């Protein structure tokens, strides 16, 4: 439980902390310290085990499918980092208490800080690589929020975004790397991975895994060429920068390299990639740091440089170098955290961080100055301080690299050079800030010492620097050993922690660096002039520009492709269908199956020709819309005849009625539209469309031909056999519709109902001005309701109702049914609307069409649900024959009720749709109150 609790505690704290925000900064700071204190207390008892190379493991299963488990591991390495995270975290909390202004969102700050701490602890304590990745990306996200804490500042937002893009993106690469490792090993558990080190290194995918993992590590640890995000993360409040740059965030990448050191290191690839990256980073960071006028900028670049140093050490592939690296991790954390805090104090007290303004602070804040100077000396590698020790080891290691020929001189050269720069910028930090004359235009003048407790964290850290520097073996020796033991898988080399190892080459290098650095600083103006010749690149702006460019290109590309043109989308759809079907159809060719062609009679041929002519005519004359409509009617009519010709009376009837209603509908719409379609597409476009159309048509022809001439067996014989005995009707089509596949019909009438409702809703608030006359310039006639039509419409209604009843009743046994009957009723009523107008007709219709639709659906459902009461499934039909005197024998079937539902739905939906359209007309002033809708 211990380990998971250690990780969990900060998150719990993050939830709890904001609750104390009201109680003031002190309260919340205390509340925020609690998790870390508890965690430290919980880790302490395990020290003894760990010091001897023991490992504490804890595993909970989580997602075995992906190999992700909640497993944690505490060994020397993770302990080292955990302690850094916890202790420096505590100091940061205390420091932030004084740093933040009372009006700032303290609750959010501490919550995020604790989240971040938790995520970092998660990284170092995870024993499952995927779990580690989870925390890894979490730090990216939380750091994004922390860096942009002052989100009203543009630089903060940009810095945060850049950090997120780089570290988050690196995390994605790391994800891929880890997945490859997991695939090689078959597990993501650290123990398994460590055990499979040789397997991994010899695997074909090793270079990929290595590159991807290193991408993750380098982005996080701000290695060249990904280092640029780090200085801009300075936009965060100083406690955040101090934390991110010393003990956490950037150290995550280092930790990763240490953690996977036994697995990945030791190969040439590792050596070249890691050491050269480290080397370049070391130099660049050190070089740039010297020229930064911003206090935090200097520190940030020095961080980059030191991270490069650590990376270089890891890259050296020697065990001793790894130890040195770990040692430097500790040292860097302590002096860098204290330096950042000092810088924060200076910023806090003077209102600026520009070293051209801040001068001679020694007089105003000697205490802070002392602390900062000690820490800076440590950074420079001055003896008796911890920085000196690890740097010495670094120099020693740089000499021991076995590079061929002249290359052997490179590492020591680089190391020394970097040392010189380090001394130079450290000297600048000390001299510029605390001496070098008087302050220039300070926003806050005179500056004075910060609150007492704000200095305590700095004091503690500086004390640590000194202690480690003077008594390394006692103070840090065991911890370092434990960490090295864990990192190197138990193969800790002989090393000796002492203030001095005698007068040797490394010491000489140190001296060289020290005096070279001082010299460089004294001659700084020359370097500044030299540096000023190069235009300084603002990485943020570049990044922003690249991002913007990307977005613009993306937007332009999107707009080009997704241009809002239906013609293009439709073309793509149809072309896709044609293309996918083309290959099989092409294989088939003009295929005539075993049934062959049957002879054709002249009337059918004539009808076919008429249909083809009308269809082509519709397309050819589509510009004259009314003409196209008339031709469309012909097509519909001949299609209906075709159905009749080939034994489908039901279809013929349905097609006919639907066709007429459709035409009426189209004409209702056409009233408000131009009666003529202009030519808008260029002829190549039309040619293209024509080609697509012809290919589609040809394809359909071939398919149909092949299909029709092939023998065929279907399940239909069942329907024919069971229609009468099982469904109680002799019209098999109708029985299929209301019984065998009644559910389809239920869906179908639902569609109809929804369409009508949707049409009604859509037209509810539509205002359309009809044209004053037709397209030829004739004004509309004033005679809306011709007398003869009116007179003939009157008797038509009862007659049509009778016919529709007739067709309805016969439907189960003869062609007909609820749908056709419904359409006849609807059309008869539509005739009333046409003949006498909306107002007149609505006055005579005592119900709302909505309710008719609802009633229809309800009937259908009730008819279907009736069978449930008898334990039969939905839509099971029942029928029986009743004999009444006089009337004779007749059939009663539950399917009739269902069909009645169809009838009502059709009536309601058709009328609702048509009448909604008709009501758009300004002439249809509705006087009716009860009527219609």
């Amino acid at each position, binding site marked *: 439980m211990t380990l998971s609790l250690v990780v969990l505690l900060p998150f719990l704290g993050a939830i709890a902390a904001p609750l104390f925000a009201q109680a003031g900064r002190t309260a919340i700071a205390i509340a925020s310290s609690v998790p870390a204190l508890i965690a430290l207390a919980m880790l302490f008892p395990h020290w003894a085990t760990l010091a001897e190379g023991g490992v504490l493991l804890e595993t909970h299963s989580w997602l075995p499918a992906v190999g992700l488990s909640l497993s944690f591991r505490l060994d020397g390495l993770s302990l080292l980092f955990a302690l850094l995270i916890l202790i420096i975290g505590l100091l940061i909390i205390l420091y932030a208490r004084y740093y933040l202004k009372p009006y700032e969102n303290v609750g959010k700050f501490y919550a995020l800080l604790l989240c971040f701490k938790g995520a970092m602890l998660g990284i170092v304590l995870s024993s499952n690589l995927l779990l580690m990745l989870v925390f890894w*990306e979490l730090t990216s996200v939380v750091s994004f929020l922390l860096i942009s804490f002052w989100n009203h500042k543009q630089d903060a937002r940009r810095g945060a*975004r850049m950090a997120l893009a780089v570290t988050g993106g690196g995390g994605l690469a790391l994800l891929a790397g880890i997945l490859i490792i997991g695939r090689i090993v078959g597990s993501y558990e650290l123990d398994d991975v460590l055990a499979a080190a040789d397997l991994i290194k010899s695997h074909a995918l090793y270079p990929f895994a290595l590159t991807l993992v290193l991408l993750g590590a380098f982005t996080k640890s701000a290695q060249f060429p990904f280092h640029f995000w780090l200085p801009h993360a300075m936009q965060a409040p100083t406690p955040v920068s101090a934390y991110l740059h010393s003990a956490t965030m950037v150290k995550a990448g280092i930790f990763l390299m240490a953690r996977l050191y036994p697995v990945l290191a030791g190969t040439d690839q590792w050596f070249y990639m890691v050491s050269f990256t480290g080397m370049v980073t070391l130099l660049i960071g050190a070089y740039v740091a010297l020229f930064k006028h911003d206090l935090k900028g200097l520190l940030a670049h020095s961080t980059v440089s030191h991270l490069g140093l650590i990376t270089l050490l890891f890259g050296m592939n020697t065990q001793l170098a790894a130890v040195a690296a770990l040692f430097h991790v500790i040292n860097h954390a302590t002096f860098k955290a204290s330096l950042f805090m000092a810088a924060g104090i200076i910023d806090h007290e003077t209102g600026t961080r520009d070293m051209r303004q801040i001068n001679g602070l020694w007089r105003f804040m000697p205490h802070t100055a002392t602390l900062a100077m000690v820490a800076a000396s440590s950074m420079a590698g001055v003896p008796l301080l911890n920085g000196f020790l690890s740097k010495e080891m670094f120099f020693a290691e740089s000499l021991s690299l076995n590079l061929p020929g002249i290359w052997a001189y490179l590492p020591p050269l680089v190391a020394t050079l970097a040392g010189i720069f380090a001394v130079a910028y450290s000297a600048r930090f000390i001299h510029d800030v605390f001496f070098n004359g008087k302050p220039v235009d300070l926003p806050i003048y005179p500056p004075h010492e910060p609150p007492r407790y704000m200095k305590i964290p700095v004091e503690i850290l500086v004390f640590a620097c000194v202690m480690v520097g003077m008594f390394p073996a006692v103070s840090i020796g065991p911890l370092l050993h434990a960490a090295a033991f864990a990192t190197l898988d138990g193969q800790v080399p002989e090393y000796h922690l002492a203030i001095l190892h005698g007068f040797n080459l490394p010491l000489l290098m140190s001296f060289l660096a020290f005096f070279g650095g001082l010299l460089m600083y004294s001659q700084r103006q020359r370097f500044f002039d030299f540096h000023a010749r190069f235009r300084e690149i603002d990485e943020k702006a570049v990044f922003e520009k690249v991002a913007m460019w990307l977005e613009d290109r993306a937007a332009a590309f999107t707009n080009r492709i997704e241009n809002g043109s239906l013609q293009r989308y439709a073309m793509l759809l149809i072309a896709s*269908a044609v293309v996918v079907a083309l290959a099989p159809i092409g294989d088939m060719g003009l295929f005539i199956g075993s049934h062959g062609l049957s002879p054709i009679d002249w009337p059918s041929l004539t009808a076919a020709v008429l249909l083809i002519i009308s269809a082509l005519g519709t397309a050819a004359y589509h510009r004259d819309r009314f003409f196209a409509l008339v031709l469309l009617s012909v097509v519909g009519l001949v299609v209906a005849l075709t159905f009749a010709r080939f034994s489908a009376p039901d279809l013929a009837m349905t097609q006919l009625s639907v066709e007429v209603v459709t035409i009426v509908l189209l004409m209702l719409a056409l009233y408000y539209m131009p009666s003529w379609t202009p030519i808008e597409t260029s002829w190549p476009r039309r040619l293209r469309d024509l080609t697509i159309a012809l290919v589609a048509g040809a394809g359909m022809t071939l398919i149909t031909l092949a299909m029709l001439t092939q023998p065929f067996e279907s399940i239909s014989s069942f329907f024919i056999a069971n229609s009468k005995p099982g469904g109680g009707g002799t019209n098999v089509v109708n029985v299929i519709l209301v019984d065998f596949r009644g559910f389809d019909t239920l869906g179908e009438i639902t*569609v109809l109902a929804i*369409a009508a*409702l949707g049409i009604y*809703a859509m037209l509810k608030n539509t205002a359309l001005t009809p044209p004053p006359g037709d397209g030829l310039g004739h004004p509309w006639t004033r005679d809306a309701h011709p007398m003869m039509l009116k007179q003939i419409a009157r008797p038509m209604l009862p007659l049509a109702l009778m016919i529709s009843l007739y067709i309805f009743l016969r439907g189960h046994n003869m062609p007909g049914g609820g749908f056709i009957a419904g359409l006849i009723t609807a059309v008869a009523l539509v005739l009333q609307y046409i003949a006498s107008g909306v107002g007149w007709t609505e006055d005579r219709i005592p119900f709302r069409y*909505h309710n008719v639709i609802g009633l229809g659906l309800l009937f259908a459902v009730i008819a279907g649900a009736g069978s449930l009461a008898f334990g039969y499934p939905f839509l099971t039909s029942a029928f029986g024959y009743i004999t009444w005197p006089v009337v004779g024998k007749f059939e009663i079937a539950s399917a009739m009720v269902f069909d009645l539902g169809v009838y009502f739905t059709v009536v309601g939906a058709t009328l609702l749709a048509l009448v909604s359209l008709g009501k758009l007309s300004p002439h249809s002033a509705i006087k009716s109150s009860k009527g219609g809708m």
Partner: protein
Amino acid sequence: MNHLLIAPILIPLLGGIIQVFIGYAPISLRRTLALATTVLLLASTFALLVLANDGSYRVYAFGNWAPPFGIVLVLDRLAALMLVMTAILAFFSHLYAIHRTDESSRQFHALFLFQLMGLNIAFLTGDLFNLFVAFEVLLIASYGLLMQGPGTKRTVPSLHYVVLNLTGSALFLISVGMIYSVTGTLNMADLAAKVPQVSAENLPLLQAGGLMLLVVFGLKAAILPLCFWLPRAYGNATAPVAALFAVMTKVGFYAIVRVFTLIFGSGAGALANLGLDWLFAFALATLTMGVIGALGARNLRTLIAWQVIISVGTLLAAVGLGTEEGTSAALFYMLNTTWIVGGLFLVVDLIAAQRGSAVDRIVTAPRMHNRTLLSVLFLIGAVAAIGLPPLSGFFAKLLILQSTTPGAEMAWLWSVLIGGSFFTLIAYSRAGSIVFWRTVDGHVSSTDRLSLPVTVAAGGLVSMAIVIVLLAGPISAYVDATAAQLFNTSEYLNVLNLPVIAEGL
């Protein structure tokens, strides 16, 4: 025969019918009844999930006609999963709609419920033609829903949507016709049994039919050359509708999974794994297009709309691997993306309401009232959508990445998926930081504060990202079992032999 199977269809149908009748009743009554229907539906789908989790197939034969003659509903794990996913999404969307969207038209609730009915039929049906009918039900309702809301901006996108889908319906019918003309049956299980036995001369017809079916489903799912209708349609729909529509593309996805594992799956003889290669390639292209679109999005709604396309690409790429693991991963991802995208649509709507004339455009605007809450919701949604840990999107992507085997496919999938995540990360971070942080002084005059239902709705959906993580174990076990069930098609064929005819009481 378990009558519970028709509950997800009958409940919204009856609820919808009631809404048709009470269109003029007080709005509170309509809201209460409508929401009650959705809640009831939710409950019933959970019951079905429990039922389906034993791994057997349950068949409901309409009209007491045995398959392949009658229409059957088939409940398996996949169907139950889709039902529950939809019901949860629908519940929150509906809750959100109660806030104000439903005032725009008296038909809103009816359309909404009918839409659910269509979706549920599509997920449950075991009949190819009935699938067509289900598609039409859900499409026509979606047309109606899409047009809800004031203003004229959604007319043209809706028109495009409608015309394309009508064309798609025609293609669907042609495909069904081709398949029927060769096999002589419509029942999916029967089709699966007959497809391998189709004679060589009939094969081209069947193949063309199958591939055209893929195009149809691809249109619904919004695969690359057929996806362009989506951003504008979704981007202009009212929020709860857009949120509900997050499931619309999943219908296409579902249909592809169902039809192309069962009927044209590995057991389909000469047509085994029909179209799978195409699917994978086009899915990756879709994903790329989605990322590009998201990167270039100028407003949040469009951004989320492209996110829909990204998820489609991701889903189908995983399915296109043609493996059990891939499908399982896709299902997991589907849960995540459906809810999250739905939630994001809602959140974005809340954001837009508080930014005055800037609405959801990614520009400087006055500070929002409820900035903290909204930004947290957006953050959660974005993190889950990008696929960053610790939220559900990460695990989903992890599963997908893991489901590949080394080779060209893996290289493609990994690089596109991971690269896509990176660029969406950029898009979201930029959008979020501008919308929330780059503010000008002064408040928007509107006092559009958050009401409880909308907050719960948006928050609820977005926080599914966390729920999924907490339940990751059970969920992944379930989707694994689902994929296993899917790939064991011979089991499904047993549907034909199950005793489904009731004897009555």
